[in-house]
């Protein structure tokens, strides 16, 4: 390649990357700028630059925390509910799921002609069903048990939805850890539970992070079950935001709440990310 070709190539490369970045980032910028607009700023044609094109206002943000009686949308309640429901359900799913996955990876199970792989597949097959089909049985089930419109009910449903993901991800990870590590730990002085928590699990940290992220993202941003299984006593964030979208849309508050709602995911992703890239297992498996 000569100089001109190289320039053309890198020009195309960066051009494509910039285009894609705009595509990804623009909605956030739009939401950010909209969240500082007032009624006039939104309806008076497309404007982007604060102070020059529109007068910024904090109305969108302050409405988030104001009571409904004073024209606000009082997001603290749903926010807290969403945090509790998604963290608790993710925690339970991770705890149960890693144990189940470890069992499936290390022990042989038989149920008639079915073995470990069938059981693992059975776990993930629960997610084949579209949520719409599950919603009605869950609704009836929760109503029957008196758990409809409660945190506990939502947590239970989310755990059921998250478990397959955890099991699926973690079985694969545990299978990459040689069983000699368990055995070495057992001989060294661990009981099976200690061998699991002190030796095997730390070596599956990247898998645990992937599973945790998937769980939190799903449970935090799920709209469907939140909408159908809770309505008055418990309100989760996604339906609350969507309901804003009713007769007269407060675009500024909608934007502000959207930004606030992705914040925990961003924080959690940053915290967990550093555990992702660790090639600890290199050199353990037979060469």
């Amino acid at each position: 390649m000569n100089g001109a070709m190289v320039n053309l190539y890198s020009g195309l490369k960066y051009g494509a990357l910039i285009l894609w970045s705009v595509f990804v980032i623009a909605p956030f910028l739009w939401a950010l700028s909209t969240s500082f607009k007032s009624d006039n700023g939104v309806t008076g044609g497309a404007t982007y630059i604060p102070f020059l094109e529109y007068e910024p206002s904090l109305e969108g943000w302050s409405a988030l925390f104001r009571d409904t009686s004073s024209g606000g949308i009082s997001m603290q309640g749903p926010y807290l509910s969403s945090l509790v429901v998604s963290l608790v359900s993710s925690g339970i799913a991770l705890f149960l799921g890693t144990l189940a996955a470890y069992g499936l990876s290390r022990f042989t199970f038989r149920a008639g002609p079915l073995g470990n792989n069938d059981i693992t597949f059975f776990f993930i097959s629960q997610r084949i069903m579209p949520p719409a089909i599950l919603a009605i049985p869950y609704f009836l089930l929760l109503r029957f048990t008196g758990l409809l419109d409660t945190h506990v009910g939502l947590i239970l449903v989310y755990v059921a939805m998250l478990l397959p993901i955890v099991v699926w991800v973690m079985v694969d990870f545990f299978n990459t850890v040689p069983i000699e590590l368990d055995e070495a730990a057992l001989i060294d002085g661990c009981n099976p539970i200690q061998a699991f928590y002190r030796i095997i699990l730390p070596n599956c940290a990247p898998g645990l992070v992937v599973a945790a992220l998937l769980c939190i993202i799903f449970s935090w941003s799920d709209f469907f079950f939140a909408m159908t299984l809770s309505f008055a006593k418990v309100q989760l964030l996604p339906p609350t935001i969507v309901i804003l979208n009713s007769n007269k849309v407060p675009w500024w508050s909608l934007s502000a709440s959207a930004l606030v709602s992705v914040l925990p995911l961003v924080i959690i992703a940053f915290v967990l990310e550093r555990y992702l890239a660790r090639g600890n297992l290199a050199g353990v498996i037979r060469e």
Partner: protein
Amino acid sequence: MAEVRIENICKKFGSVLALDDINLTIHDNEFVVLVGPSGSGKSTLLRIIAGLEKQAAGSVTIDGKQMDGIAPKDRDVAMVFQSHALYPHMNVYDNLAFNQRIRGVPRKQVDRKVREVAERLEITELMKRRPRQMSGGQRQRVAIGRALVRDPQIFLFDEPLSNLDAELRVRLRTEIKRLHQELRRTSVYVTHDQVEAMTLADRVVVLRDGRAEQIGDPDELYQRPANVFVAGFIGSPAMNLFPGQASNNTVTIGGSETITLETERSGPVTVGIRPEDLLLERGEARGTFKARVTLIEPMGADTLIFCVAGDSQELSIRVPRYVRVRDGETVALRPREGAVHLFDPESGRRLN
């Protein structure tokens, strides 16, 4: 003091009988090697001793104590694995110290022990490294160190040298032998390498298809193999085995050549002669048979000669390095007196 008694051990994997009625007493301070081809059940037996595997029948007794239902951690055994099985998320120091910490040994004592062992194995400068930052030999050395820190009653080795290159294998083999001489701990060592078995063992157990074919010290195994399998398995190159006919205290091989041997047997036999027990003679003489040289492998100290006797009977001979033969030459071979083994061709059992 630790004696391991293995009584009537049987083990099945599905419908396959992995161990078939194994009986073995490993004496205090003894170094016993379990050797056999893959699938012979040698690792399974070791794992049963360790408590990692449950036997279908029979019992393991350590120091007079029945081991049924006793967890691996409570058997006072330490094990070195083929894949070293060091904990990847810990550095060398923590790998060595882990078994002491989990057993609640005071910190100072752990530290002293770890440093002592590290010094003995010359791995002190590796203390801060993770397993992935070390070579195969260093890792295996740390794995041995992890067992040493335990100061257990019994050392178990599961093919610890199989993943190493030839030079390192020989070095660590010597080191393991020296360690055993110094520490005098009961040791059980699994390998498929008969040289390792011969060099390390006080006593060797040759296993095949889950059965103990012979138990004896290396000399016994080499000089008086109990059957054709052991005869062929121990020694490199393998013992020459060929069909013969016995009658009247003579054994005829290859139709015409005869060897005089005291045997009450008459009828077909399998004759076994080790490569170094076939003596090369020039010219014809009584009691010799002819063979044509097909390949010569000078090994330095001695030379291996491969030849064909009769139509297709392949033989190998080991001669001192100063013996010169030419490719294609016909040589006369005389079996060394008293070094001919006779086996039953059907059962494979030793006859003389």
